[in-house]
């Protein structure tokens, strides 16, 4: 068996491959050779083979068959083997596989090896990938090594201890004694890793934090020595002595000084010294200054020091180096809440950063600018931010637009300014505005009563220019629908009123309906707007025509709306003006605005929640016409079901839940129907805001042995009443009274007449269809008085 090819040889060969396929072929060939070599338990070349496997793994090929080989290498006596074995373990094994536990014993032995480099390998592997079980088993060994005088081992043991604590926090206590004289070391490696260990312990345990506070003077001394010390070639970086250690000490001081007056006082001087004396021409100096600023801001420093810190950040903002500007903006963002005034002083520099070419900086500057907006600077800031919105990349536009809306809402100096700002955002970044902005804006516009004419005029003009930005178009259509009368009568006070006729307005709205640019939601808005104008404009016939055309639209949503509006014209004309009248001022619900009044899919049906309006009239179904035919002779008015029975409306659902108990309201329930095993009970409740509405829940139960399926309940009431039937809980009435079908009926009885009802039941039972009619006359007086 010839010796397997050398690592370097393999690398060179693989690099000559010209295609991916060629490379794969080479790799597969070599893997096969390696596998057979592993099978032969070849000790001499195992190391070489695993090294090759690691290279192929880096290229992205599977190497799991080498895992056990790594363990064998670790167990070998040869240093070369161990080195590659441990590397392989760190690359190929992870704590998810049980295989890794086999390492534990080897590591334990190697931790006690006579050669420090072997011990180092073991510590390194444990400290990088040791699982919780391994850490538990070997923590004692690590703790022992933490106390050794060998600085090479001590520093590694310290970071290994950090890893152990991260994995198994309960073991933290056992390392406490070993930390006693860690800081008296001269070796920078040990010092640095010790500070890291102390930091980790203080972050995890308030007791440790309190215990280590006494180290503050020592830390201050070490830091001072670093700053004052002369040039040391091994630790110097651009004239600064061991910046890594300095930064780490500053970070530990931050944790120790937080919320503690004495500690903060003890570090005041050194912080001031570092802040003023550090060389700022290179990145390394600025790294230290940055950490110093973070520390000053976090501890209980005196105000002079805080001002110094913010000024350093201000200077950072003017630095040529982008990284430093970025870091400054990030830090200012963190401090803007607590030191608002100090940060405000740098506002103009921050705003200038909006024009920076770097994307990361622009984003930070934008966030910070929004944080700085207040009642005093709103006009100026908004000008800059709107300019930014115009010219920024699309990835920013959505966030910027939202930020502008929020800021405008909080600090708008006048309603007109507010509307103008919104208009500006909609026209420049209209397609990036978030969906929920549309209802929020509509609510805002509604509530600015004196600005209605101005708003609708401006929106109309914007529509004439551009109909591609959907949020703008939606808000504009809604406003034109609401305030079209103001538009046509030229009542605008704020600016020169434009001359526009009813036909021109309807042209624009109809244009939206047919345009390819309009989304289905927008079309819905436009159609509703046209409908609303039927009570505000005189050209009702034109509107009727449009509405009837869309009654056969392919878009189901539009079709439904058109059919409903058609019905409004035909059968419910007497209700039309009431239904379509001006919207009242909406109350804001949560901070996000009136989500219950204006649904986020853009619907703004005027009928949804307002209790003052009569209950909504919805789509007439075929069942309703059947009922009409059926009840033709009488002067009963038919009533229509709302949605398909399979989808219960949420309002109905809640009511159903509420009325689970039969005798809730003190009005006695009645049995409305009881025949052929089907029993229907009525329970009553008064609807809360409007005492003229009685809420009746029917409970249908079935005492026969077979289910009643396709169960449909219909009801009709005399003309002076109005009735709304919500969706039933299901349309199967289970046999043997195992369950009930419930359905809610709302009856409006403004004239307080005696309630009568005619009901029709249809269902399938034992394979045949059943139908029955009945009258219900035994309503208790409390239900309608």
């Amino acid at each position, binding site marked *: 068996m010839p010796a397997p090819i050398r690592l370097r040889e393999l690398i*060179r060969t693989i690099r000559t491959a010209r295609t991916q396929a060629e490379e794969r072929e080479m790799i597969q060939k070599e893997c096969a050779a390696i596998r057979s070599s592993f099978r032969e338990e070849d000790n001499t070349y195992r190391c070489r083979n695993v090294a090759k496997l690691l290279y192929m793994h880096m290229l992205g090929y599977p190497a799991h068959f080498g895992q056990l080989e790594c363990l064998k290498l670790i167990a070998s006596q040869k240093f*070369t083997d161990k080195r590659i074995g441990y590397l392989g373990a760190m*690359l190929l094994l992870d704590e998810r596989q049980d295989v890794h536990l086999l390492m534990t014993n080897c590591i334990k032995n190697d931790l006690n090896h006579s*050669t420090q480099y072997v011990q180092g390998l073991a510590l*390194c592997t444990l400290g990088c990938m040791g699982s919780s079980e391994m850490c538990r088993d070997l923590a004692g060994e690590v703790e022992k090594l933490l106390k050794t005088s060998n600085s090479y081992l001590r520093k590694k043991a310290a970071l290994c201890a950090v890893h152990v604590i991260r994995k198994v926090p309960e073991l933290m206590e056992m390392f406490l004694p070993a930390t006693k004289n860690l800081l008296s070391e001269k070796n920078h490696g040990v010092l640095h890793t010790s500070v890291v260990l102390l930091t980790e312990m203080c972050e995890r345990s308030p007791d440790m934090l309190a215990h280590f506070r006494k180290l503050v003077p020592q830390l201050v001394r070490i830091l001072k020595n670093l700053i004052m010390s002369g040039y040391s070639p091994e630790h110097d970086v651009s004239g600064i002595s061991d910046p890594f*250690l300095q930064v780490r000490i500053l970070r530990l001081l931050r944790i120790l000084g937080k919320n503690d007056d004495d500690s903060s006082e003890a570090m005041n001087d050194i912080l001031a010294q570092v802040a003023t004396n550090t060389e700022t021409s290179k990145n390394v100096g600025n790294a230290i200054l940055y950490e110093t600023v973070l520390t000053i801001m976090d501890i209980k420093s005196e105000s002079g020091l805080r001002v110094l810190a913010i000024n350093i950040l201000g200077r950072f903002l003017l630095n040529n180096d*982008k*990284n430093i500007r970025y870091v400054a903006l990030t830090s200012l963002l963190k401090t803007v809440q607590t030191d608002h005034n100090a940060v405000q002083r740098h506002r103009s520099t921050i705003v200038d950063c909006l024009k920076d070419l770097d994307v990361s900086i622009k984003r930070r500057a934008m966030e910070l600018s929004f944080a700085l907006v207040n009642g005093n600077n709103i006009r100026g800031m908004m000008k800059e931010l709107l300019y930014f919105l115009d010219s920024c990349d699309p990835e920013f536009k959505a966030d910027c637009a939202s930020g502008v809306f929020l800021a405008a809402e909080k600090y708008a100096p006048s309603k007109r300014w507010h509307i103008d700002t919104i208009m500006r955002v909609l026209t420049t970044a209209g397609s990036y505005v978030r969906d929920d902005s549309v209802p929020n804006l509509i609510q805002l516009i509604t509530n600015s009563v004196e600005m209605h004419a101005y708003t609708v005029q401006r929106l109309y003009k914007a529509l004439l220019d551009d109909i591609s930005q959907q949020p703008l178009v939606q808000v504009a259509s809604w406003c034109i629908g609401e305030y079209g009368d103001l538009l046509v009568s030229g009542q605008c006070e704020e600016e020169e009123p434009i001359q526009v006729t009813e036909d021109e307005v309807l042209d624009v709205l109809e244009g939206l309906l047919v345009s390819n640019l309009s989304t289905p939601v927008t079309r819905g808005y436009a159609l509703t707007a046209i409908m609303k104008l039927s009570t505000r404009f005189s050209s009702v016939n034109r509107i009727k025509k449009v509405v009837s055309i869309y009654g056969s639209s392919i878009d189901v949503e539009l079709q439904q709306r058109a059919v409903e509006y058609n019905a409004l014209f035909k059968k419910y004309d007497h209700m039309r003006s009431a239904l379509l009248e001006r919207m009242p001022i909406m109350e804001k619900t949560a901070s996000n605005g009136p989500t219950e009044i204006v649904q986020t899919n853009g619907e703004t049906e005027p009928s949804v929640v307002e209790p003052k309006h009569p209950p909504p009239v919805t789509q007439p179904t075929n069942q309703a016409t059947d009922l009409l035919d059926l009840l033709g002779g009488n002067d009963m008015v038919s009533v229509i079901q709302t949605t398909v029975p399979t989808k219960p409306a949420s309002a109905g659902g809640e009511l159903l839940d509420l009325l689970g108990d039969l005798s809730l309201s003190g009005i006695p329930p009645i049995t409305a129907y009881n025949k052929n095993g089907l029993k229907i009970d009525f329970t009553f409740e008064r609807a809360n805001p409007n005492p003229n509405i009685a809420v009746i829940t029917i409970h249908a139960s079935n005492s026969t042995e077979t289910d009643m399926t396709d169960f449909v309940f219909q009801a009709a009431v005399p003309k002076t009443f109005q009735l709304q039937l919500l969706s039933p809980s299901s349309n199967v009435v289970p046999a043997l009274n195992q369950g009930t079908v419930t359905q809610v009926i709302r009856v409006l009885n403004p004239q307080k007449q005696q309630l009568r009802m005619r009901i029709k039941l249809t269902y399938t039972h034992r394979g045949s269809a059943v139908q029955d009619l009945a009258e219900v006359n035994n309503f208790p007086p409390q239900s309608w008085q």
Partner: protein
Amino acid sequence: MLRFLLLFSRQGKLRLQKWFTPLSDREKKKVIRDMMMLVLPRLPRTCNFLHWKDLKIVYKRYASLYFCAGLEDQDNELLALEVLHRYVELLDKYFGNVCELDIIFNFEKAYFILDEFLMGGEILETSRFAVGVSMEEADTLQETMEEYMSKPAY
């Protein structure tokens, strides 16, 4: 602490991957892909810092190699740049005028050097000489000279 350190070429070839937290193979591949997608298209004179998920990403290009590290929120980004620079210096000292080929053909050495400089995502040794000394001494312990010691002809 650092969460990971990656070295990759301009063409998107991975040259070194050091992970300081346990991740599955699939997660690692995803991180590598994401980092390459974020870093490679960046223009020359832009900021060296990025945000990715909840981490700060610091990257620096040295000749044909990108050095890319993932930091946690409390870590100092400016110092991370110094950490990357120090690692390059250490490689340079060890290999003598290091180039990408050195790291390709001697990747295991690059790992050994890294393991003398960082451990568990934290800096282990701040002295630029100490790492070189440890490497030299450890190298002398290697039994087979021909395997790794000679500088290869590419």
